């Protein structure tokens, strides 16, 4: 196979674009795809301060690399989830990338910030690890961005992630989630508590997972290939496998499903949940939706944390995680 641009030997074929690329032209192509996405969705401007959530995996490190190459002011944020050797390896990968690129990386740990790791949280609350993990990540990313004065929180969600999420939301007709699934989530500021949900963007939505892996490998980025040991039974992963079979048979399926949704369907789901009002959490001040204004509003992060810490101090644990899968 030959490179579409220079006719040299291709190192990757992107079947949905009907094109092969040599190394240099692939890196250029992918960078162009990200730049195009940033522009198309007006994600941020050149003078914005970006906080990039990095996990040590291919997507977030490739994204950070591309943003730095495009000249953006992009700081990394690594959250140590306390998942044993996996967390240590992913932190090392993030730290060494930052050193190589002389980029700034903020490191925080759940154990230090809240006295809880992801495995502990799962054991204490009886919820599957990914559910508590996702809640903590969303909360901590937002808090770090606010406290450190960033304009935008950038995450490495790629096309496969978005399609798998969309697929799951449709399978379960999760209409609230469908209304919130977008490449850009606008900032929501709360004047009374001075806090906000920062603006969140996903510049990799046009890029397939296979392409971010190829980018990282060809750029010599030493990302962690191993999976989180807690991922087993994760339904998102099974959706991806099913969708990959469809993509293999008809290239372009993923792109069509996601961008078709954005263009033709997502606006139909965009409305506030019935009767909900966004107020400040009475514990931490973070914006949270309430349905009954007479009750004290506590955000789900603070609720989960309080429950887990209470059980930890009592030395009790919940029943083993339910078999129900959460995503």
């Amino acid at each position: 196979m030959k490179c579409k641009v220079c006719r040299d030997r291709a190192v990757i074929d992107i079947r949905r674009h009907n094109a092969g690329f040599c190394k240099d032209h692939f890196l250029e192509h992918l960078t162009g795809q990200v730049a195009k996405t940033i522009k198309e969705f007006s994600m941020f401007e050149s003078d914005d301060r970006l906080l990039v959530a990095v996990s040590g995996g291919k997507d977030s490190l490739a994204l950070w690399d591309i943003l730095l190459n495009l000249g953006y002011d992009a700081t990394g944020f690594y959250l140590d989830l306390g998942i044993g050797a996996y967390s240590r390896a992913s932190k090392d990968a993030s730290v060494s990338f930052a050193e190589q690129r002389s980029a700034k990386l903020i490191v925080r740990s759940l154990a230090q910030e809240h006295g809880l790791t992801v495995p502990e949280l799962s054991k204490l609350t009886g919820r599957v690890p990914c559910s508590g993990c996702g809640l903590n990540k969303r909360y901590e990313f937002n808090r770090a961005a606010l406290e450190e004065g960033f304009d935008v929180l950038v995450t490495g969600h790629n096309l496969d992630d978005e399609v798998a999420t969309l697929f799951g939301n449709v399978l379960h007709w999760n209409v609230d989630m469908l209304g919130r699934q977008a490449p850009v989530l606008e900032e929501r500021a709360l004047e009374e508590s001075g806090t906000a949900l920062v603006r969140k963007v996903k510049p990799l939505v046009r890029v397939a997972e296979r392409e971010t892996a190829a980018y990282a490998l060809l750029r010599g980025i030493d990302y962690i290939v191993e999976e989180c040991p807690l991922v087993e039974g994760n339904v998102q992963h099974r959706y991806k496998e099913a969708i990959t079979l469809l993509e293999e048979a008809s290239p372009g399926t993923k792109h069509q499903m996601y961008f078709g949704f954005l263009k033709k369907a997502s606006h139909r789901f965009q409305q506030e949940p019935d009767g909900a009002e966004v107020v400040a959490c009475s514990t931490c001040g973070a914006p949270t939706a309430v349905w009954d204004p007479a009750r004290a509003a506590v955000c789900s992060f603070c609720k989960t944390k309080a429950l887990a810490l209470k059980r930890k101090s009592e030395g009790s644990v919940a029943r083993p995680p339910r078999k129900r899968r959460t995503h």
Partner: protein
Amino acid sequence: MKVKLRNPDRTVEVSGPTNVRALLEELGIVPEAVLVIRDATLLTRDEDVFEDDEIEVRPVLSGGAR
């Protein structure tokens, strides 16, 4: 040839020469779900692979809420 598979890490022997497409078919792997790596570079489906090659087949799909 030696073919390294990941998650969990293991190595299998496959006899060559053949090409990437046929190799993946023999291993029962969907090409869209992996990268095929030789000498730190990538191979497209139509590339030939040889008896004394060392190949890595690296999965690209990751799971988990992010």
